[in-house]
């Protein structure tokens, strides 16, 4: 439901992109995936991630899909964010990755 709304709203916005390297010990595993998706769900913007700059893109609000990416430590995570609060959303997810999901 909200996916539809998000993409409708998203049409009016230019996608923002940025990347960050996964620094925490075992990559984007269970606990970081949960933290990332919880953070992403706090924003209206559509937030997607990928292991390559040109995708394939994964919905960063779905822990099931984020886990399927199986991003290992040292991988570069690319983000693509589209929506009204896109800037804040991008800053928040990047901060989480830079911070090693608080697992340092």
């Amino acid at each position, binding site marked *: 439901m909200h996916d539809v709304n998000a993409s409708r709203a998203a049409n009016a916005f230019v996608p923002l992109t940025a990347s960050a390297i996964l620094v925490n010990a*075992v*990559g984007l595993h269970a606990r970081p*995936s*949960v933290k990332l*998706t919880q953070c992403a769900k706090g924003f209206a913007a559509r937030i997607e991630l990928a292991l390559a700059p040109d995708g394939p893109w994964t919905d960063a609000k779905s*822990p*099931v899909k984020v*886990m399927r990416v*199986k991003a290992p430590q040292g991988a570069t995570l690319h983000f693509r964010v589209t929506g009204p609060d896109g800037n804040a959303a991008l800053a928040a997810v990047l901060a989480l990755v830079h911070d090693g999901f608080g697992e340092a």
Partner: protein
Amino acid sequence: MAEIHLIGRAASPGLAIGPVTMLTAAVARRTASDDPAREAAALRAAIEGARAEIAEQIKTVQGEVADILEFQVAMLEDDALADAAYEVISAGIAADHAWRLALDVEIAGYRAAEDEYFRARAADIVDIRDRVLAHLSGVDTVARITGGSIVAADDITPSTFLAADWTRGGAIALAAGSPSSHVAMLARSRATPMVVGLGPLSWKEQPPALALVDGDAGTVVFDPEPETRRRFEQRMAAANAALAVAEAASLAPACTADGRRIAVLLNVTAPEDIAGLDPAICDGIGLVRTEFLFEASHGLPDEDTQYAVYRRILDWAQGRPVTIRTLDAGGDKPIKGLTVDGESNPFLGLRGIRLSLARPEVFRVQLRALSRAAVHGVLKVMLPMIAVPAELDRACVMLDAEFAALRAEGVACARPPVGIMIEVPAAALCAEDFGAAFYSIGSNDLTQYTMAAARDIGSVTDLNDAGHPAVLSLIARTVEAARKRDVEVSLCGDAAADTRLTTALLATGLATLSVAPVAVARLKAAIATVGS
């Protein structure tokens, strides 16, 4: 229906009889409807039921276990998990079948992962799959294990074990599993009988209603004939009577049949272990694990917190010797903010004394707390995972410095004797070279390092044998080194509580064994038969 005899491996001793609780949903029958809408609704309700159940469980746990459960909740809340299932349900497939198909694809994806960590997540998805299946078919699930039941499953997780009430009896019968698993250790500490490796638990019609579990012989009988049950109950009554006698006798010192006095000490995992106990059941405390101090608190415990706990244990012992082991983190005991994540082989990495020496700012706090507590009784300090004498020497230099600093500050303190754990074969082979005040043999690690077989890998459990001549020979060598240097030696691993090994251990010359409080009566009874 004929009774079913299964033979497995004993993982925790004792006899139990009780109603069977199946933890696998695979055996339960479910009548599916022909209406895809009703099947989809049933799946939705089962997923929500599973989610609510885990959310309820989270309230009772903390730390790593809570994180694992929170991950499961997040997965269950995500519609993406069941999308594929709803799709095939709309094509006319029953809800349980559809869910299993969808999750098995997910599980296969994890099992195929290159990264070991992601491969290990397959177990979480299996857990999620089975919990939802259980809700779909109305089988009893984790949270509803009633006291006194025989839990039958492929395997069970420590969190499942901890969620159930074992104070009213009960037992565990596993198709797979390992006597060296964490669950087996928990079962032994709670005196819950457990048998593993029974092979596939499959039933032609109904799952069994009743089971007899013999945790001594490693056998299980499902749906026993009345005569089998009667004989088992007789054995249980006799065993209970013997245990009562042993418990009454457990206040007396242990002696072999030929008159050798054997000291029986306690292993203490947390101060609560000894709270209601009469100290007369033991000759002292042979091992206080201090990891609990570091797990429960957020952040590392400060000096006063540690001092208060050590003092409480010394007060309980009423002058009996108390051996406190310095922090033994690492290996299978990670501690957030202290141990190193992602070592390729944590058991051969920065653990035990190695970690303490690498983190002197943490180690110093513990040494100060121990020096202060030492004035309240007979305290000995034990260093884990020692491989070479330099590690002992460096730790002693640090202890001396902290002791001197405390004295200079005018704080009441004493310099406790420092001994070493013998768990690395190198230390056992060269025990004489260490200037240790005592030796304590950690048979769990000594066995796994000697046999190159991990405790918690079911497929190599047979090799993880503390009674193997190579392990016994290292124990004998340590005892001989202690005799030559005229210092004490004890054994504090699981082997001490395994009464099948008592004769062999005492034959090495050992005269001090340290076990969990629950094992004291049984060990003293076993010692009394040695040499008869």
